[in-house]
């Protein structure tokens, strides 16, 4: 019975994952990805990893909401009103994806992993807690510091203030002489003084 549910959920996760790159609407794509994550979380719950499964669902639901907002911000076709394909090197990508899936699948089919399931009476959440705050505390803390560094990095990268003045004007170093041309190599297409608005149109 569990097998059947796991198989159905795995199929659902793969199908929704496939839909991500097949729907025209970006918002629908991100919700499709969210469904894929939820299916994986449900498999985790079925496979006696309730904490991981539920945490996956919560985290990914929030993450995909953020994703959907970014979709609306950055995509030319957020509502899916027009059909749209935005791909490059399509054949190569299909080939790489198929080769990766088939070779991993072959590795799965031809290997014999040990058959050692979780004991039914094990309190896996308590075990995880003792592991996190016990032997693996340093790893757990490192993940926390990494997330802090991520927050700092995200703020710095997306800040309006660049290294040499406002980020809108491009990161142009000051000139070597007073009021001279900016030092260093000029980036292609100049700085941000003349914006190219080519939003929309490619679709």
């Amino acid at each position: 019975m569990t097998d059947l549910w796991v198989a159905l959920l795995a199929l659902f996760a793969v199908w929704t994952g496939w839909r991500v790159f097949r729907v025209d609407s970006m918002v629908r794509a991100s919700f499709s990805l969210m469904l894929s994550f939820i299916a994986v979380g449900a498999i985790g719950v079925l496979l006696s990893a309730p904490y991981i499964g539920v945490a996956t669902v919560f985290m990914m639901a929030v993450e995909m909401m953020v994703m959907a907002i970014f979709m609306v911000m950055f995509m030319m076709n957020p509502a899916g009103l027009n059909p749209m394909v935005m791909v490059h090197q399509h054949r190569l990508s299909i080939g790489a994806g198929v080769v990766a899936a088939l070779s991993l699948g072959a590795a799965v089919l031809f290997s014999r992993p040990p058959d050692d399931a979780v004991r039914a009476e094990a309190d896996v959440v308590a075990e995880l807690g003792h592991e996190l705050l016990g032997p693996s505390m340093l790893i757990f803390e490192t993940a926390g510091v990494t997330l802090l560094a991520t927050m700092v990095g995200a703020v710095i990268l997306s800040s309006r203030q660049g290294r040499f003045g406002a980020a809108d004007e491009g990161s142009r170093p000051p000139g070597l002489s007073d009021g001279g041309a900016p030092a260093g190599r000029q980036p292609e297409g100049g700085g941000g003084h003349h914006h190219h608005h080519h939003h929309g149109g490619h679709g």
Partner: protein
Amino acid sequence: MTLTIVLLGAAALIGIGLYGALSQQSFVMLMMGLELMLNGALLAVIGFWSLSLGGMPEGQLLAIIVMAVMAVEMAIGFALVVAIYRKRQADMTESIGTLKG
């Protein structure tokens, strides 16, 4: 049997994610491909932990690390998208070919 199903699903997710990461022109869709690959990795970790490791708590820890990687990838990825859009008005991979050889 269950483990085989789970791992085959994970392999398919990684394949689809690789396709998306290589083929999509938009940064945001490209990141969805990366997320999908991490989703497959998470599924494989859960499957191995539950059915092959006898419930070693380190397996769950690895799943949590995978989730942390997802969060880091999203946050830094979106920050990069914002930064590059501000500088170049670029929202597609083709628009930032400056480093191309």
